[in-house]
């Protein structure tokens, strides 16, 4: 597994776009399958937007780091942050069977990450939250 890029963005909602640009270049360089690229794009958007809007809100000095690694079989995304301990996967899945009228707006993001990725994990180590996502290049 080879680290392809590591970047940090500051804690402002508009910063997610910078990660999207670098990830798009990475995906193009290695000709990632569209389905894999799009799933990782969605997962990054969910986790980073969540992080920048809530986890690190009001902390101007904070930043979020994204590391992307690749081997023949999978893409591995690691997102460490130094905010308060927070497990994004520590919530029950939302009820996705409700009607338009009854459906609350929001709450779906982490559910999408869980379903679109092949593996997700969270741990708190050395004072950091560390989220790891794995997506296999070939579905199976």
């Amino acid at each position: 597994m080879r680290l392809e890029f590591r970047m940090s963005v500051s804690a402002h909602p508009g910063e997610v776009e910078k990660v999207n640009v670098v990830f798009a270049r990475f995906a193009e360089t290695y000709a990632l399958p569209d389905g894999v690229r799009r799933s990782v794009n969605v997962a990054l958007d969910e986790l980073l937007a969540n992080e920048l809007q809530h986890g690190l809100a009001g902390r101007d000095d904070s930043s979020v780091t994204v590391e992307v690694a690749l081997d023949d079989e999978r893409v591995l995304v690691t997102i460490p942050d130094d905010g308060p301990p927070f497990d994004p996967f520590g919530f029950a899945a939302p009820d996705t069977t409700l009607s338009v009228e009854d459906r609350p707006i929001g709450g779906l993001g982490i559910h999408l990450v869980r379903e679109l990725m092949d593996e997700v994990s969270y741990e708190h180590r050395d004072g950091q939250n560390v989220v790891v996502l794995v997506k296999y290049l070939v579905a199976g």
Partner: protein
Amino acid sequence: MEISTRTSNDIHIVAIAGSLDSTTSPEAQKAIDAVLAGGRKVVLDFSALDYISSAGLRVLLGAAKQLRASGGTLRIFGLNQSVREVFEISGFSAILAVYPSEAEALGAM
């Protein structure tokens, strides 16, 4: 993201190209709000939409709720495999009217 709107008879067709995510959803929200202010028959053209995240789903759900309340109609066509997968995981394919093609979306509206 690129967004364009056109009107065919009294049906407003909004084409969203690129990504509908936390970065682009505020702009998409504005464009859809503008359409909702003047029309009750709305068709979303997703044939050039690359991917959608929950921020984009939020915009769609808001529009669907508004149109449902005002007796309007919302239809969507042109989903790629990834957008379709997100619709299925989120349950949106069961609550929004999704059509395979523009002709079918515009039919009997």
